[in-house]
Each structure stands twice: as structure tokens, then as C-alpha cells.
């Protein structure tokens, strides 16, 4: 019973945190239950749907397949890290809204975190490449069409340099 619990210290959305977790917990469970991060969704819990996707040291992982104890000493980013301190939306979030890429909203956070990885690569991808990069996520509402538009738009804006100020 004693060995079942572990202290996990890591960096969560820019803040150093620590929590004692059940060693069997997935990262999804820890982020949802112990840190109440509701953007991390459970859609299958076996790595099929992508709804629980988060960035670990800059790389996307299905957090349902990643043990909570494995993030010790690592940097974890969830969708909650994207908005500014006053709740200002990031360019990516705004692009999802502007392109009507959000419907039920359940796959949205996972998609956005993969899109963060895409945008932060600083590379320009073709539509076919974007489709492949985003294909680890399932969505039943959008047919993926507007998600592609949103990610493409955010990618191009970043590559062009700082987005012009909104009127």
C-alpha cells in the first residue's frame, strides 16, 4: 500500500508543482483529478482518439498512455497554458474560433496541442502534411475541414511574423 504512492514533481504550464499520486495513475488521471485541468479529455483511454493529448517537453503525447510518475522533472503543457494572464486568447485559439473549427469541443484541446507542436516547429507544411500531422486525433463533428483551415491560418500568420493588431 505504501509503495503504491509516489511524489511527482514536475513543471506544469510553467509552474513547478508536486503531488503524491497512485503509481498506477495515468497522466490524464493526474491532470484531471489532482490538478483539475478540464481541457484534458478522456475519449478512449487507450491512445486511439487523441482527446487527452498534452505536450511533454515540447512533444505531443496521449496522456492516457503515459504514466503520471513518468513526468517527474519534465515540462508538461496543457491547453490551459495557451491563453494570456488576462484570458487573452492565443492566435491558435482565435483561429479555431474564427474558422468555426469548434463544435462539441471535446476533441478541440487535443487538436490544439498538436497544432501548438506544429506551429512551434517554425516550419511551413503543405495541406497533406498537416493532415498527416493531425491524423492522430479523431473528431466526429467537423469532418476535420475547419480544423485544417484553422491550423493552416495560424501557421501562415506565424510564418509571416507578428500578426497585425486587431482593429
Amino acid at each position, binding site marked *: 500500500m505504501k509503495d503504491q504512492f509516489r511524489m511527482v514533481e514536475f513543471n506544469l504550464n510553467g509552474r513547478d508543482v508536486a503531488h503524491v499520486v497512485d503509481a498506477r495513475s495515468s497522466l490524464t488521471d493526474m491532470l484531471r483529478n489532482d490538478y483539475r485541468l478540464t481541457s*484534458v479529455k478522456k475519449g478512449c*483511454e487507450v491512445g486511439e482518439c487523441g482527446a487527452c493529448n498534452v505536450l511533454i517537453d515540447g512533444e505531443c503525447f496521449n496522456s492516457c498512455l503515459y504514466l503520471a510518475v513518468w513526468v517527474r522533472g519534465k515540462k508538461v503543457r496543457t491547453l490551459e497554458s495557451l491563453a494570456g494572464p488576462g484570458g487573452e486568447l492565443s492566435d491558435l485559439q482565435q483561429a479555431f474560433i474564427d474558422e468555426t473549427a469548434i*463544435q*462539441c469541443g471535446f476533441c478541440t484541446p487535443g487538436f490544439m496541442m498538436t497544432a501548438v507542436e506544429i506551429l512551434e516547429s517554425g516550419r511551413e507544411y503543405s495541406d497533406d502534411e498537416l493532415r498527416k500531422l493531425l491524423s492522430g486525433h*479523431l473528431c466526429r*463533428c467537423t469532418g*476535420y475541414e475547419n480544423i485544417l483551415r484553422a491550423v493552416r491560418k495560424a501557421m501562415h500568420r506565424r510564418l509571416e511574423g507578428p500578426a497585425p493588431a486587431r482593429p
Partner: protein
Amino acid sequence: MGNVGQSVTRLDAYDKATGRAKYTDDLCDKSALVLKIVHSTIAHGLVKSVETSEAAAGRGVVRIFTCFEVPDIPFPTAGHPWSTDPHHQDIADRLMLNRHVRYYGDDVAVVVAEDEVAAARAARLVKVEYEELPFVLDVQEAMKDGTPRIHEEFPGNVLAHTSINKGDYDGAIREPGLICVDRWYETPVVQHCHIENHIVFAYGENGRLVIVSSTQIPHIVRRTVGQALGLPWGKIRLIKPYIGGGFGNKQDTLYEPLTAFVSQQLGGRLVKMDVSREETFVSNRVRHSIRSHLVSWLRPDGTYVARKLECFSDQGAYASHGHSIAAKGLGAFPQMYPCPHVRGDAYTVYTNKPVAGAMRGYGIPQAMFAVESHTDDICLALGLDPEAFRRRNIMPVGYRDNFSKNENYFDSFNQCADRAVAYMDYRRKAAAYKKQAGPVRRGIGLSYLWYNTGVWPISLEHSSCRMVLNQDGSMQLQVAETEIGQGADTAYAQMAADVVGLRDYRDVHVISCQDTDVTPFGLGAYASRQTYVCGFSIRQTGQILKDKILRYAGELTRTPVSSLNVVDSNIVRQTDGRILMPLGDLALEAFYSLEHSEHLTAESTCQIKSNAYSFGCCIAEVEVDIPLCRARLIKIVNVHDCGRLINPALAEAQVHGGMSMGIGFALSEQLLFDPRTGRPLNGNLLDYKLSTFMDHPHLEAQFVENYEPTSPFGTKALGEPPATPVAPAIRNAILNATGVAIDRLPLNPHILFQRFTEEGLIRDSWREEK
């Protein structure tokens, strides 16, 4: 006055884009006990005993309920309005846990534990002893004499059989010289695959049961929980937060009764049922697999003389929505291509498979696959052009259905087809693609679609609405019609703002979460009904609120009410357009006036006794690799006439989602069963081939906007129609490419291999050597 018709941002966009929107699991306290169901591991049989002692001894196990401990009250699950006429009530054929198990995955017992691990461990240790009975998986086999009876009261396993008869089919087909096209078509069992699985939690509060559930139909589930538990319906309170998709699976009572029952038995403790993806595939609902037999008799010039449809709808183990699905498909048959002599028979039949219920399109995707595939088969047999033949025979302008009183007011079919044909360059391609040789060929195919909005006159249609004015001139809006991702709340806000005269739809605060204690009574998300039916109650209620505002304004301004209006959130004198006061100032005065204080609110119900046809057209282009037996979709367009668009951007997004579901239905999705055991073989998202980003080309959605005259806002069905024409269009494109007609979905390599071999396009050398 211009919120309707604008592509405004959805009301929940910010909360969903930041991950803070609360879904059912986000609202459940961590102290909840966890439920885990023990499912049947046989397809048909009787539970002799359930041995729970080993499981119950496990650490963290609180209680185990078996099928011998639940109330013996059969209850209906379908998300239909209740009927006070016993003959129109849904079939009540299941208990919360079943002693007579009727499919592999049926619910036998439920473990209550302190955490998920303890619950799952205990569920595996529960030992169920069965008396196995023979089972049947095929819909027509199930109807034969001597097959096992799945429900005692349904001989031949036929849940229902309905017929239509128009003219004299038998006499008409004796006309000399007729050409007969006679074929069978079949669609598979598929699942909704909303990304949020069904989840529900329940607890006691002041002698009542509170249930928070991921459902499309809060008021209906309140009633069915009351029925299942034998409780007065007022003892149940049902709360519906944001949900992660539904598509019809959540238009059914799922595990709300069982979860509420367990909470009740444990003195109102908080209990949660979080359904797994694997359970969602097997033990929730699926789409009816329907086998259809179509016979058409035509003169050589392509005139329909007589038509016949027989369809066999695979209900699975329990009634759920039952015959409504097959009946909807049958109802579409005589209307789409009217013909003087029509006969139709629809059978809904129990089998030992997962329970079929509502799914986006409600029988019409299956019917459109049969009817629109058959239309191309007729053209092939008679040497006719598929587009010209359709245009010649499609429901004419002015066509009126005597039952629903629906009327085809506009030439929508042809207008939609014109747009689709132009976008796809259909005519040139269809001609060019006929002349191909070689292993990789292209093809282009067409399908129309027909859809009824809402359920009148089969069933009740109404909507209730409440509007409450705030001190600043904004207002709350409540309806029972649910936001399930489609953007319904935003459409309601746009309509309400225009009716009351508010400047901005964001001044309408839609209370998205339904709570049966406070939300006006209504029915929920199904039948592509919500924008249509809510339009009635929003207009009526908005008019009542506006009248109250204007009466109050008349008092304040000493102006006759008939000279006043609310425009852009101002009280305006109509004679000269002068702004007399902002609505917010009026509201503030009304709240706190020492002369005449009044909270300005309005609430009303509107019963709807009309319906509206929704129309559309899909054209798909494919590339078929004959040796690899693969069809790849390369271009597609859907064109819809759903009346005036309330929010064009959200409408377009709805069409994308429907097309995507149609693409999966056409090319890859099917739930498979082991014929020896009845066990589902691929109930997970790896083995069940849901379409991904890689399987889709650009999805082109276009609209023809003919103002629907029966709707206060000129709107009609759009939620489901986009999913209905895609599969036959893709199927007809493969026919155009290869000359091979394929009558079964999905059009995956397995079926293409079989059909291409049969038609001599490829050689099955392995079989030949044997």
C-alpha cells in the same frame, strides 16, 4: 435587426477554446463511488446464478447488484415524447439488469467500488452461470420458423411490420414490355463514435434523485428514469451539461436508470458511471443495419410504372427506437420519386446483436443508399443518364404529402443539383470516365437526398421558451432543446435577439445547461428539429416579452404602444424613428420603480403542427485502384436547401460533419460479429475504422436558400441530412469508374475484391489454383 443570417461566433466558443467548458465528468465530485457493469459473455441465454462473493471481498468494493435485485419493471428507452395513448407508447422490453440476456454485452450485474481499479477488478471476478440458448444474428434468419424467440411476446422476432400501398402494383406490372430492375441492398451496423462516451452520475437530495448525464434529451430521460425505478417523475431531476457529441446515441436512455437506482439503494450516495469506449461500441446503441429489396418496373423510355420496397431492419436485442427507423425510410420511398403504383413493407426484427437506436439520419442513410443506388442501377439497365433520369422523376414542385401536409414549394432538387453539377464539372467527367481502361480509374456519382424536419404528425412537436429581462436590457433565454455541439444555442440567441429587438445576439444569455427543475418542458436534440421548432416558441415568447416591454415603455413615455417598437436595444418611436430611451434604462426602471415595479419576463409553449421537407444533392468523385481493390474519395460536394440559414458558418460546419459521417459509412465503418459466438470483433477505435484526417478530401458545402414558408425564420432541417446522400454518391462513382454495382456497405477492399472478382476485373488466382 440583423442577427439572423450572420456567421456570428458561437456563444460557447471561448469556453471550449480554453478547455474550461464543463462536461459531465468535470462536474462530478471526486468522492463519487464508481460503477462498473458486468456484461454478458454469451449472445443469448438465461442467467442461472451470479457468484459475487470473491468479487465483493476485494478491497474498495462497496456493493454488487445483480440482475436478480433490480425492480421487475420493464421500461422503454427511446428518446421519443411520451404518448398518453397506450398503442403509441414505446415498447418496454428491458430491465436495468437482465436475467434473460439477449446479446453479447448485455448488462448482468453492476459493481460499486471506491475507485475505478477496484471496480474493474471486482467486475472481472463476478462469475455468471448461464443456460445458453440458440442465438440468431441475421435479420431474415431471425424471422424464420424455428429460430430462437428473443422476446416471448414477439413471435417470429418481428417487432413491427408496416406497409404502404398506393395504386395497383400487381395489376400495373402486367403491362407488356416493361423492364424490371430487381436488386437487394444492405448497410452495416455502425456506431456514433462521439468522442465523449456516455457518462452519468447521480445522488440523492432532499428525498429526490439528481442525475447529471451526457444526454441529448433531459426531459425524456427524467420520465424514463421515473418509469424504470417506479418513482413519480417529479422525484427525478435531470441535469444536462455540455456534451461531447451525441449523434443519436444519447437520444436514448442509456445508464441513467441503473446509476440512479444504485444511488437510491445506497441512500443517495454519489455514484458515477463512466462508460468505456469498448462498452460504447457494444452496450449503448448502434445504427440499424437494413437490408432492402427494391423492384422497379419501367417503360423502356424510363417512365416509372410501379415500384416495390421491402426492408428488413435489424433491431438487435432490445426495442429502443424500434420500428420508427425503418418506418421513416419506408415513408421517404413513395415521395422522392413519385410513381402511380407503389408497394412497400418494412419489418423491424429482433436479433441477438447490440441494440440499434437513433443515429444521425434515422433510417434515411440506409434508405438513400438503397434508393439512390437503385436509381443508378436502373439507368445502367435502361441505358439512361443518371442525372437526367433523376431530374425527370424527382418529386415535382407543388407535390404535397397527404399525411404530413408537407409541400415541395420550390424547385430545390434541381437548384441543388445545378450547383453540385457545376462545382464538380459532373457532366464532362461522367461521360469521360465511362471510357476508361487500365488498373486505376476515376468515377463520379450523384445522389439526391430527402429529409423531413421534426416528427409531426407521427408524434408530438412542441417547444417551450422562457425569456427573462435583465437590468441592463440583456436577457436570459431557456429552452429544452439542447446544445450538443451543433451550435443550437447560438442560433437561438440570433433568433431571439431579432424578435425582441436586441442589438446583439450576445445580449441573449442562453442557459445552455438544461435542468428539468427549471428548464421549460421540451423534447431535445433529434430529428433535425431544434432550430425549426424553437423558432416557433422563440418568436411567440419574444413577441410576448416585447409586448410587455412596449406596454411599459408606453407608460414611461406617455406614447401609444402602437407607435413604439424595440430596435437595436432602444425604445423607438416608429412615426419618426426617434430613440426615446435605451432598453436598459427601461429595464432598470421596471426593476426598481417605486411607481410600478415589474420583472419583465415571458414564457410560452408553441405546439407545432407542421413539418418541412429538406432537400439536397451530393456528388462524389473517386479514384479506384482495381488491383488493390481500393476506392479513394478525391472530391466531394454537398448542396442543401435547408431554408434560410440562421448562421451560415455553423450551417457549413454541420454539413462538413455530416459528410464526414457519410464518408465513414460509405468506405470503412462496420461493426463485425463472430458468427460462432455473436461476440463483437472490433468494438474499439483501432479496429473500427472511423475516418481520420487522412481519409477526407476537401469537403465542399454549398446552399440554396429558399425561405421555408412554414417556419417563422424560414428554416428547416440541416443536422442530419448531410450524412444521408454521401454513401450512394460514392457507390455510384465506383459504378461510373468500373461498371461494377456494389450493393453492400462499406465499400472497403474486402467487398471490392469480392465484387471485382465476380465481375472479372481481377482474378482471384488463389481460389483458381484450389
